[in-house]
């Protein structure tokens, strides 16, 4: 019996609401909702001016929780803080020090991290509009609103927080109707969170790809894919005299500053829409259908979002690459194949114990060839990005008129472990020019095209063909530049009040 139908992931249970052990009222709404009805959004990046006033505002500001609201509120507000922000607010150094090392270091904190994340050349943090040096934000206020409701809300919030904070940057957003600036449907592939805690908290081999992720992959204080609790600040109860914080599930008696919180990664990605379409037009020698085909090969989806690995798929997120191991239908290096390879813990094969043992010991040569990519379930991201700038049409892009337009994506994602999730995906799967046995190419959309470590080129793109050598594009230009970024902590609401009281 075959283990997995070749092109379908394991069927997951129907999305469930939060289990009784999950306090949705303590979780910021962004973890559960994309706020898609709230098509208007602005992100305020703040620096502490007066710690006492800043704390006073944070102690009382209404934060939208993950509880279902019917009807949806006119607006939603979320709060996230950086490690510099925690220090600036006066949180004890030992408490701050118990957060993850990546969060403490910050996204632009050291050259080795910039190297790992590919933030070099024009994306070097020293050129960033915000996020580096004196321009590291302390706090982010994420404001979402129904159409027409944002402006008044923003003015009110900016006035309220002015005593405690100065405004470092106001990141505006644009509703591009579910498309990112290059014109592709965005946000289709998302992990489904196990709100119902149906996955047992144990460490077991998963033989099929599943889109259902343990809650602990995105929320601290819950078991992750290893059945473990990700490290986070746990406090002696005496540090939490008011009993503001939830208790740590695995350490009886300890107050849990992390529980119901998540790490929020924000990166401002400036997209050269004109450069993208003009380059593809050159590769296609002006043939519109070919241009479209090449663009879809780079992304792994057509512009409306159909996965090219399975043009017959009826649901856009319900497939794997099991039937296309060589990348003939969808190139191995396509953007969505790199960022979500949809594989399981062991290359698929017969389900007998002996066959599995042979694969586990590495003696199955064919399986080894399909075993070059790390198991996907440990590297999922919950994306919450929003587009910004003025949308550029295809005609405008091809005309080159929009070359100077500042348009792009405020990439945002949530995860419980920046190192294993965001940084791994960015380093090994996006920047890595040896992903899945490929060479001389990095992510076709996000790559910085700089020669990689050891002087290896990264500006190619290969499209395997069923007959003969792979078709290769060379000298692919850089389409995306990082213009800002930071690691935030998106605390549980009780944790936010605790931090504001510290």
């Amino acid at each position, binding site marked *: 019996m075959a283990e997995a139908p070749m092109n379908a992931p394991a069927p997951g249970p129907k999305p469930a609401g939060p289990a009784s052990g999950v306090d949705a009222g303590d979780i910021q709404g962004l973890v559960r909702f994309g706020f898609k009805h709230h098509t208007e959004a602005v992100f305020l990046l703040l620096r502490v001016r007066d710690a006492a006033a800043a704390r006073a505002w944070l102690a009382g500001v209404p934060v939208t929780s993950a509880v279902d609201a019917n009807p949806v509120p006119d607006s939603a507000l979320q709060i996230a803080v950086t490690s510099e922000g925690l220090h600036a607010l006066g949180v004890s150094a030992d408490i701050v020090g118990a957060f993850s090392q990546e969060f403490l270091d910050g996204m632009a904190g050291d050259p080795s991290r910039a190297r790992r994340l590919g933030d070099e050349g024009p994306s070097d943090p020293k050129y960033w509009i915000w996020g580096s040096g004196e321009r590291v934000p302390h706090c982010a206020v994420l404001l979402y609103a129904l159409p027409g409701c944002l402006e008044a809300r923003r003015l009110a919030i900016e006035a309220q927080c002015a005593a405690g904070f100065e405004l470092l940057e106001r990141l505006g957003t644009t509703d591009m109707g579910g498309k990112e600036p290059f014109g592709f449907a965005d946000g289709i592939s998302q992990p489904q969170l196990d709100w119902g805690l149906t996955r047992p908290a144990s460490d077991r081999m998963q033989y099929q790809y599943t889109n259902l992720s343990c809650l602990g992959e995105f929320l601290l204080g819950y078991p992750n894919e290893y059945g473990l609790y990700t490290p986070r600040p746990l406090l002696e109860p005496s540090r939490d005299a008011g009993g503001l914080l939830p208790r740590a599930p695995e350490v009886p008696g300890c107050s849990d500053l992390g529980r119901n919180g998540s790490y929020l990664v924000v990166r401002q990605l400036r997209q050269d829409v004109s450069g993208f379409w003009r380059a593809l037009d050159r590769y296609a020698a002006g043939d519109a259908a070919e241009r479209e085909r090449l663009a879809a090969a780079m992304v792994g989806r057509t512009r409306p979002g159909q996965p090219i690995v399975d043009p017959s798929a009826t649901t856009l997120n319900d497939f794997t690459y099991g039937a296309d191991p060589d990348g003939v239908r969808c190139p191995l290096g396509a953007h969505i194949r790199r960022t979500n390879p949809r594989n399981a813990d062991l290359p698929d094969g017969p389900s007998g114990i002996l066959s599995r043992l042979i694969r586990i010991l590495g003696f199955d040569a064919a399986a080894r060839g399909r075993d070059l990519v790390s198991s996907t379930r440990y590297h999922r991201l919950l994306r919450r990005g929003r587009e910004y700038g003025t949308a550029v049409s295809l005609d405008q892009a091809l005309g080159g008129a929009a070359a100077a337009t500042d348009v792009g994506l405020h990439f945002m994602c949530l995860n419980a472990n920046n190192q*294993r999730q965001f940084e791994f995906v960015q*380093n090994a799967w996006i920047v*890595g020019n*040896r992903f899945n046995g490929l060479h001389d190419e990095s992510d076709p959309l996000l790559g910085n095209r700089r020669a990689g*470590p050891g002087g290896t080129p990264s500006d190619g793109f290969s499209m395997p063909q069923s007959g*003969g050598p792979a078709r290769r594009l060379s000298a692919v230009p850089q389409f995306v530049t990082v213009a800002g970024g930071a690691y935030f902590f998106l605390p549980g609401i009780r944790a936010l009040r605790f931090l504001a009281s510290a």
Partner: protein
Amino acid sequence: MTPQSQFTVVAPIGKDREPALRQLLATMNKVPGVADPNNASVPFGEFENLHFARFALLDDPTQGDIEAYGVRRPELPSYLAFLGDCDGPSRECLVEIVRRAGPALREIFRHCADFEADGDLLSWMMAHDLPVAANYVNWVGRTVVQIKEERALQRALAAKVDRSAVTSGAAARQRRSELIAFVREEIAAGRLSLTPPSATPLGWRLAKMTNLAAGVVITLIALPVLLLISPLVLVALRFHEDRDPEICPRPDAALLRELQNLEDLDVSNQYTALGSAKPGAFRGALMTVVLAAIQFSCRHVFTRGFLARVQSIHFARWVSIDDRQRVMFVSNYDGGHQAYMDDFINKAAFGLNVVFSNGVGWPHTEWLITKGSRREHYFKYFQRRHQLPTQVWYKAYPGLTLIDLSRNARIREGLEMANPSDAEVLAWLKLL
């Protein structure tokens, strides 16, 4: 075929000599973490049989951990380690290194406590070349010369090949014939060379066969005894596993930064780690048996591109030092550190646990193979805390991963294949 070998020259550092030694070693680097292949001291790039080499200071801040096991912390020195992986006998490689870099090596080893300034350098180094408890070579027989020649071949063919779709078997054959002719011309013009493999040394083959026979005989003799005592062993194992302290505090931020600064400067990275062996006869015996089993399987089974599911390790070795009180593990691997550790956790946790759970502080295991490194962050903290900065690191073929090496080798095999089928020709063209 030319088999690979390694040298592990380890000597105690003289009192108060460490800062000066660090400074001296740093002069060999192009940037911190990568040696300049043409540096004035030890010009690694000139040794055409040398795959990887490193200098590392073995200064172990975790020595005190053993006190958690009720054992007094022994007084152990800091060492300088000079390691290399070579084609052919390591002695020949050392002779060559001493011949060309003798004065510089003397200058380096002068910082060691027992170095004899007037003595014979080679003899001193050979005397300090420690036996290796277990040694892994990704592909036994693949030489540096071969790797470099095949890289040039791959580049030439990839640039030359016609990438339009192939319509028939005959067309594929035609394309291959043209490429074969092209390679012939390039070789004739001296732009490419494809040195035929050397004959496998008879002594090496005999030693390997003898070792295999001895291993089988010993296993057959020991098996009944092992089966007989296995219940006792398992009881003892579980007793120790329940009781052995787990020591996995978060590594120091400064150490982490120092290590990361040395990483991701090539598609491959280096790893050097040191830890104490658990005290007591049971763990000592278990470690000995396990390392012997690993050495045996690396010699006879895992010689062709993979160590169980892990396909990203070029060379690795375990070396006992201080009369088996401590074990050093070093490796050269492809990809980033995070990916390397995830490979270990997700693909080979059982193998890691079998050996490393005999080390002080390893995350709790059960039945020798479960838990342990699957306890993700405990393991990640543990391994980073035991890792030591590698002051000087050399790789003979920057920019190439094992996947590249094996693809390039297959390209050459396909080029030299006598009567390939249509399918084989097509598969070969795809490699380009």
